[in-house]
């Protein structure tokens, strides 16, 4: 009889373990992150002329960058991590649909911030990081270096004139990591905020969205001053690439 009770207990445990966790009554929701590329306070317009603090006039013909490893922080401090294999995106200024990243199946609750990677974390094993399935996207958008099994984190191109050269010359800025030698990947965190002073909620039937501004002017005029006249072709550049990566990491904001 003892055996019978024992088995009964096992059966009950097994059966009850199948019950849905009912602690959270709200169903998962979606979050739209919209990246707005700007020059200071105005939206960036491809082909328009802007002036940096080095007094160089520049026009942007192409702006693409990789956003990855998105993690949401709940109000209670715990994290909701977007599955890595679904967490790699190319934002392309010339393609409006790419400016908004749609994240779904996010646990319902109150959130306070979002973190994301700028580029691809080179320290992570490719299978673990989920980047292997990102390769075709990166390739089709020109974000792969052909000579290396690595990514361009940002592709920023156009032309410029400076005080000394009035003739337009091209500029080309491709920043990525340099093998295992130099890591230009940066992690960025911005708050999640409502226009009304309430918790930022994600749940089914809520249209949760956040605008994230990327001030392109900061690439030149961030903490490190970058002058195109000084160097207009920055690719595998161990001096300037980390400076630009640092500038970029301070260029994101909301509002």
């Amino acid at each position, binding site marked *: 009889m003892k*055996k*019978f009770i024992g*088995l*009964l207990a*096992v*059966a009950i445990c*097994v*059966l009850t*373990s*199948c019950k849905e966790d009912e602690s959270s009554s709200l169903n998962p929701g979606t979050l739209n992150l919209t990246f707005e590329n700007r020059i200071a306070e105005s939206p960036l317009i491809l082909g328009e002329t802007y002036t940096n603090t080095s007094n160089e006039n520049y026009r942007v013909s192409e702006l693409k960058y990789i956003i990855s490893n998105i993690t949401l922080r709940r109000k209670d401090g715990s994290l909701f991590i977007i599955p890595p*294999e679904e967490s790699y995106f190319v934002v392309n200024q010339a393609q409006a649909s790419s400016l908004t990243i749609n994240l779904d199946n996010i646990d319902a609750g109150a959130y306070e911030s979002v973190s994301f990677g700028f580029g691809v974390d*080179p320290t992570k*094993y*490719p*299978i*673990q990081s*989920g*980047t*292997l*399935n990102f*390769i*075709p996207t990166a*390739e*089709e958008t020109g974000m*792969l270096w*052909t*000579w*290396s*099994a*690595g990514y361009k984190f940002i592709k920023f191109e156009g032309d410029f004139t400076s005080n000394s050269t009035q003739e337009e010359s091209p500029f080309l800025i491709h920043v990525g990591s*340099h*093998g*295992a*030698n*130099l890591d230009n990947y940066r992690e960025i965190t911005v708050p999640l905020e409502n226009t009304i002073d309430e918790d930022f909620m994600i749940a089914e039937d809520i249209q949760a969205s956040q605008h994230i501004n990327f001030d392109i002017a900061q690439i030149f005029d961030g903490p490190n001053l970058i002058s195109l006249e000084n160097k207009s072709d920055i*690719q*595998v*550049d*161990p001096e300037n*690439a980390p400076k630009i990566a640092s500038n970029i990491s301070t260029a994101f904001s909301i509002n």
Partner: protein
Amino acid sequence: MSRFIYILLFITVLGCATDNGEYEALEQEENAITENPLLDFTVPSNFPEATYDISQNPPTEKGFELGKRLFFDGQLASDGVVSCGFCHIQEFAFTHHTHITSHGVDGLIGTRNAQPLHNLAFMKDFTWDGASTFLDSQPIIPITAEVEMNETVSNVLNKLRNDPNYPTLFAEAYGSEGITSERLFKSLSQFMVMMVSANSKYDKWERGEAITFTQEEEDGRMLFQAKCASCHAGTLQTDQSYRNNGLPLDPEFNDMGRENVTGLIEDARKFKVPSLRNIEITFPYMHDGRLSTLEDVLDFYTDGVTISDNLDPLLIKADGTLGIEISQEEKIKIIAFLKTLTDTDFLNDDRFSEF
């Protein structure tokens, strides 16, 4: 009473399987385990620890076979001909001989000599300049390089998806439908990770397996230790560093080597110290294949080293002259030792053969 127990057991076994879908999934999983066994990847006792994280991509029978098929499939190239195996031929330890630098699609000639493929699970990074940090992403380089396979990964995937066989082979290897780049590269890695060459005379000697070197080989080993092993260090004969060994710059290629990856001027003309496993049959030698015999290589190290800003200091002798001091007699002995690194079991291993 016993009937009661059986009913309860039945309920217990039924467990969480609330619908048939889950039941089928379980059955499939069991089938997958029995029909697609894990392969045994063992680190040879005289080897260092593997750098490749096997737990992230454990080779299976079907994954390995798929990787092998992909390795020898010209569909990975734009011309449908130049497969990985086109330049990496097993009997030459997966390098090739017919050209100095390796050639790709449309008869285009590359700037470098295809490296042999063996013991890749023990390497830190890949290619002559270390442009790939992970084995799983290395194949991107040859697949997309214009002078190699000149293809895109996306198009390779399209071709495989439209192939009559690959959809089934991928499903069998991974337990579900779908041809993705992750699965493509995982399969290639499974094939390459299993290519362990560890049965040369030298290995057997190192493991103490009742084998003796001839006097010439033993003398050569001692000389190698004294004159070569500061760079060609350890069981795999490489410290995996990048060095400028004093090869004169070939203006045709103007290959800056490691500098291409790091952007550092001090890395100009540095190339990876290669493993010397199977060196006897992996000619021609050096990153651009400019030397055709082992005698040529040793002659280069005694008489051919040229000065440049970052020539490796180990190649500058105390009196300021360049190169390594090796007599003709010593060279013969060193070569005799180098030939003990040939692993005929590996070169003839059916598991890695195209046919």
